């Protein structure tokens, strides 16, 4: 169980949230000019690190806000909560 710090509502339990998967994925294009390989990589291939993962979360059972989280996939420690349009924060190893 995690406590997630919703930027609008503050800390709430994980039960209220849904994970939306990897963040910062850029849609390639224009569609008619890209290869099947590029398109398949965009649709299906994912970073799946054992360590810090940059991912989207949705406060489904709360305010409905989408936001980004940098979270360790082993310890579930949350390093950063940041807006959807912000770049990946630098997460130091500690």
């Amino acid at each position, binding site marked *: 169980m995690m406590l997630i710090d919703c930027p609008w509502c503050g800390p709430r339990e994980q039960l209220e949230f849904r994970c939306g998967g990897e963040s910062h994925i850029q849609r390639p294009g224009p569609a008619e000019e890209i290869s*099947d390989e590029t398109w398949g990589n965009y649709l299906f291939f994912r970073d799946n690190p*054992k360590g810090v993962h940059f*991912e989207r979360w949705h406060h489904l059972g709360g305010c409905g806000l989408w936001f980004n989280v940098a979270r360790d996939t082993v310890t579930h420690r949350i390093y950063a909560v940041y807006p959807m349009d912000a770049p990946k924060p630098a997460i130091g190893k500690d």
Partner: protein
Amino acid sequence: MYCHGRRHMGRLNYSGWRVFREGLRGQKGWAQAWRNPEPKSHYDVVVIGGGGHGLATAYYLAKTHGIRNVAVIERGWLGGGNTGRNTTVIRSNYYYPASAELYDLSLRLYEGLGKDLNYNVMVSQRGMINIAHSRHDMEVAARAVGAMRLNGIETKMLTPAEIQKRAPILDCSPYARFPVWGGYVQERGGTARHDAIAWGYARAADALGVDIIQQCEVTGFRRDAGGRVTGVETSKGFIGAGKVGMAVAGHSSVIAELAGFRLPVTSYALQAFVSEPVKPVLDTVLMSISSGLYVSQSDKGGLVLGGGLDLFPSYAQRGNVQITRGVLGGMADQFPSLGRVRFVRQWAGIVDVVQDSSPILGETPIPGLYINCGWGTGGFKAIPGGGTMLAHHIATGRPHRIAEPFGLNRFNTGALVDEAAGAGIAH
């Protein structure tokens, strides 16, 4: 194939007679089931991952293809990952013909595995019943049964009365929280002893000359100028290899990153639960289409339960309490007489989930490196088939006919085998 144990190191077969004789001799005649060798400097094939799929791959390389200069390297201990963390269910009730062929090959191999390995893997074909809780569930069930029968997988629809007769403890009353509208059964489905699958394959592979090297973690790959894999760097030093296979389930992306490619895989935690032993109350496997709960009773009497995924990426082999609450609450609702049963263990395995819920079998972008992954929540039932497919591809350089639809390139061609929609797999 029954007696290959005699051919190597003078090992004797396991049999009822041996159990009887050792009983009289104070159990002093049992030998080590497999060796614990130091790695050689080079093997024809190195298989990464000492779970069911990796050990089965090594066994079929040695037995079917005669490639015996093989090592299985395992970071932890044999079967300590998902092979020892599942709910031991075997079945082949899949939707698409390609999946049906793959999973039914696995089930057929399971049916003969005890004799093949000379190891009691405790296959129990007690039937796998999927329960429908609404008119819509019934439509899904009828569609699934129709597809399975076309695929040659014998399944049949059950009425609520038939289900109640086969599972008297299931609440089939009109006022049940999850009312039972009917369901379907695959009679050949059931359970097998998961540890015995790992140990049986390990012993049989070792008897054919395979080196099983535990507590040996892969830390990198060595490649030649042409990019071809020439071996693996490990915590026990460099091990050269003609070819490398990887069968590491939830850690596939980690190994792929070491080799320098990405996979269409996300790792999630899947929980399972075992209760205190109770008297025999359930002699089949029940799965609830709506709630995703599945339950069977082990030979020791413990109720073995599973449910849905913890739906965020995780490499932590533990689960979250809301899923626990959902699974156990679902059980208490559907089996009111079990509402006060205490649970003794809970754990999670890290499963490798792919968008179309079908496995990835065959070549990787790295020449000489072959893959078996993407089984997601259903890898245990697929062990004999998955091992057969990976061994075939490594030995012949070509995919097995049955494995052809499951190549990594399907994510770029778009030819998915979408069991996520077809079989209604719960993620």
